[in-house]
């Protein structure tokens, strides 16, 4: 009887050890998060109007990503892309200037990078004939991250935000008539 209990306890021991090893495993590379998008408030714009919008992103420590204007043509720039319904356009994209930094893998070269939080600004424009309603805009940030030792393949961070096309209110500017229609910056 005692030997059966001993065997039982040893089996439990083996199971426990196995579970411990599994729990100790490194996270899979696919689970690594480089950049997250902070929530964007609903943008309210009236037909024929325009409203500024800003998108805030957070680059996780210890990574950095190339800025929108990297210092070398081989480097992959950070860019924001949108899938837009006909009722709205987004233009005048303004990316922040990157921080010029050198890294241990090449202390002699400065790279233009984003790290920590950074904000990309734009203007949402609704044509005069835009239908009222709330539209969910699908966007993605294309970026390429590195740390002090390695670089990771380019990635796309999908996110969404809402644009409410409504009647003109006090907080919404009316667009001045222009000869050309609003254009989309990608």
């Amino acid at each position, binding site marked *: 009887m005692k030997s059966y209990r001993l065997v039982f306890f040893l089996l439990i021991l083996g199971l*426990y050890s196995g579970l411990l*090893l599994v729990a*100790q495993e*490194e996270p899979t590379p696919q689970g690594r998060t480089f950049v997250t998008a902070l929530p964007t408030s609903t943008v309210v714009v009236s037909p024929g109007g325009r409203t500024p919008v800003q998108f805030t992103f957070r680059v996780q420590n210890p990574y950095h990503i190339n800025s929108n204007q990297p210092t070398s043509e081989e480097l992959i720039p950070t860019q924001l892309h949108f899938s837009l319904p006909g009722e709205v356009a987004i233009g005048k994209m303004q990316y922040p200037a990157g921080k010029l930094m050198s890294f241990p893998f*090449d202390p002699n070269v400065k790279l233009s990078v984003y790290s920590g939080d950074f904000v990309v600004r734009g203007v949402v424009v609704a044509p005069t004939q835009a239908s009222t309603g709330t539209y969910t805009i699908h966007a993605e940030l294309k970026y390429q991250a590195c740390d002090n030792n*390695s*670089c990771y393949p380019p990635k796309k961070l999908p996110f969404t935000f809402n644009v409410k096309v409504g009647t003109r209110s006090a907080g919404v500017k009316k667009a001045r008539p222009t000869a050309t229609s609003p254009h989309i910056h990608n």
Partner: protein
Amino acid sequence: MNRNVIFVLCVVVGITALLLVGKRTSKQPESASASVTGGQQPAAAPVQGAGDPPKGSMAPAFELKSIPEGKNISLASLRGKAVLLNFWATWCGPCKIEMPWLVDLQKKYGPEGLQIVGVAMDDTDDKDIADFAHKMGVNYMVLKGSEKVGDLYGGVDRLPLTYFVDRSGKVVDEIVGLHSASDIEESVKKTLEQAKSN
């Protein structure tokens, strides 16, 4: 019965402690005493990722197109050579740092049977890769990588990634990320030595 339980519990705690210590020890860099070369700090060696071909196993077979020649080259055709298989990309800063070191190693150890193979994991045109390699003075084989081959080698989700394959086709060593030139040279020597002892 109580004595049995206490005994087994002590064994459980003891083995758990050993497992934890062993796991932590296995994460230490293989070359913690690596020297610094050219002002670069040696990077810590990350643990071998899940899915990477383990040391001692046969390196996964593949066939890729050479750049700029456009010929199909198989890993099997390099059997008999000690192969340094280096996954890189034109957008990878640390990769650019180690390329001149690889050029030097190819010159130095090529006569002893070393063949360096650079597998470019870019999406860009072959011509852009070829121009980049030419600009960097690359004197070793360059192949156009693919996601499929990357998957065979654990996903290749960080660069540079280097495998050392002996003459019989077995994986001898792996370096993830940028290491010092001396670390890489040590692994080359180990691979050539392995080839001799096989």
